[in-house]
């Protein structure tokens, strides 16, 4: 490989100045956004320090006692820590496995509908569960999961035994994820539909001319339009591997389903009932964030290598 000659090799500040001169508007557009992040996201970051302190609000961040890794040890010392982490990750893995493709599938199916009125109606109805509060959704699930409830009626119809669904640890994830899909599939499909709306119709026509059938058209024309978006969404989704919200878990779980349903956030919540400890929550949050960030970097690197799509 030829070495660039000294004359061509410019220093970074000079390249930067040149870039600015050539594209001033970009810099001015980026400025307010960067400022926003600096002031409202980076400035408060000193709060991360709380994870290493025994934080008390009146002492503030600069006055609270430093305890080093103690908050982390506090959490990992618990015999349940491995289970909590495992449950958190598994719920997310299955969520991604089943829940990630679902809105894409719905968007593809809707896209194939030619009757405009039917399409609009279905699409509108599909996002409605998103607006029903979690408390109500979980209330319905709990009712349907009773031995005499709807879900068991369906089970009995197929010859299965009636069981208390929310008492079975092995069914918890299914209920959690399936209800999540039910609630979010419509809302999540919107962005994919929007992307398809902006696609080039000529590609489609060309495929028909080439004799492609319905399935082939979907796979080879429709889907590729979505690929950049799908990849972006996937990478970002991987960055949530350690996040499982406590609210829904707490509404649905019982001690009988702790085995599969007790996650990091629900445990921290119960711990918070014993005493208010900001430091613990912050420490665990930091731990989660580190893992999430690593996953994002890893997934992104993979995506860049294989698909040439990258988050940055």
């Amino acid at each position, binding site marked *: 490989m030829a070495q660039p000659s000294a004359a061509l090799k410019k220093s970074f500040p000079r390249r930067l100045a040149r870039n600015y001169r050539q594209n001033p508007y970009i810099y001015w557009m980026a400025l307010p956004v960067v400022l926003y992040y600096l002031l409202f996201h980076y400035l408060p970051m000193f709060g991360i320090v709380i994870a290493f302190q025994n934080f008390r609000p009146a002492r503030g961040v600069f006055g609270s006692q430093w305890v080093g890794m103690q908050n982390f040890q506090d959490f990992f010392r618990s015999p349940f820590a491995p289970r909590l982490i495992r449950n958190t990750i598994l719920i997310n893995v299955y969520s991604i496995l089943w829940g990630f493709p679902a809105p894409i599938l719905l968007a593809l199916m809707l*896209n194939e509908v030619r009757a405009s009125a*039917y399409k609009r109606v279905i699409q*509108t109805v599909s996002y409605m569960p998103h607006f029903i509060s979690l408390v*109500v959704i979980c209330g319905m699930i709990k009712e349907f999961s009773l031995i005499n409830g709807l879900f068991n009626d369906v089970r009995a119809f197929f010859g299965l035994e009636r069981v208390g669904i929310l008492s079975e640890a092995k069914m918890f994830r299914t209920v959690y994820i399936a209800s999540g899909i039910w609630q979010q599939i419509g809302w999540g499909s919107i962005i994919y539909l*929007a992307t398809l709306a902006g696609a080039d119709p000529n590609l489609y026509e060309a495929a028909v001319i080439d004799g492609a059938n319905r*399935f082939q058209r979907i796979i080879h024309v429709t889907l590729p339009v979505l690929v950049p978006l799908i990849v972006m969404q996937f990478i970002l989704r991987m960055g949530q591997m350690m996040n499982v919200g406590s609210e829904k878990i707490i509404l649905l779980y019982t001690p009988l389903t702790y085995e599969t349903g007790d996650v990091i956030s629900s445990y921290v919540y119960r711990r918070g009932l014993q005493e208010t400890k900001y430091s613990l929550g912050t420490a665990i949050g930091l731990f989660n964030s580190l893992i999430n960030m690593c996953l994002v970097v890893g997934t992104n690197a993979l995506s860049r290598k294989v698909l040439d799509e990258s988050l940055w």
Partner: protein
Amino acid sequence: MVENKSFGSRLFDIINYALLGVVALLCLYPLWHVLMGSFSDPKGLTLHTGIMLWPEGFSLAGYQIVLSNPNILSGYLNTLFYVVVGTCARMVMTILGAYALSRSNFLLKRAMSVFVVVTMYFGGGLIASFLVVTKVFNMYDSRAAIIVPSLVSTWNMIILKTAFQRVPASLEESARLDGANDLVLLIRIILPVTMATLAVITLYYAVAEWNSWFTAVVYLRSREKFPLQLFLRETLISYSTSMSDEVTGSMDAPDMVLFIEELVRYATIIVATVPILCIYPFAQRYFITGVMMGSLKE
């Protein structure tokens, strides 16, 4: 172009329509359940179990309670303000950011991307953010506190960036040849082409703001600035019966004290959601016109 009317294609259509119909019914149910429940009478609703297809006894008591809250109007107006002003501000910021991030000729593109993505994973926490907003920027109890600290959603910005990147290079090039600078390029070419995604991001921001209440709890003190959701929450909590030895029944109107909680919850959801459902079709027409891909010139 003649449409492919093969048997396979027809079968596909039938199955597709049917499946979508099932999905729609399943998704319709929760709202239907809540709607029917909201028109029920307190006792009937509380005692009911299982599926609800019709109101259990008819009464408007739930709505009376929720709508008779003297703050409802003020709540609606405030929320309207936060949604409209907030969404506009956020869209401007997000568009600017997404544009910059989508330009391959931007030297700092990578740095800025990392810069914003990191904030999705690391943050100072509630107390630190609170201190910055109230102490450094003096925004306590101001409407600005609802909008400014959350001006940009990184997730949305990345989605928009992806959409901007997908604009065909040919369009860009021809615009450049005509002497367009970045601003013109953005406004004349990029935005119109990505209208669908813009509509969705706008919808995401608007709905998020409509549903939000926690920021108001943290930063607002004057009740005349409270958004709708906060009042609805208050109503809901104040009508929750709690299990304690201090609960006294009432010999007059026991239903209104003892059995009212679920009814109020349902009425609250309807009151909060109906406006969104009404606005939605206006946003929908921007992205449901993907009819282009599915059908051909018929």
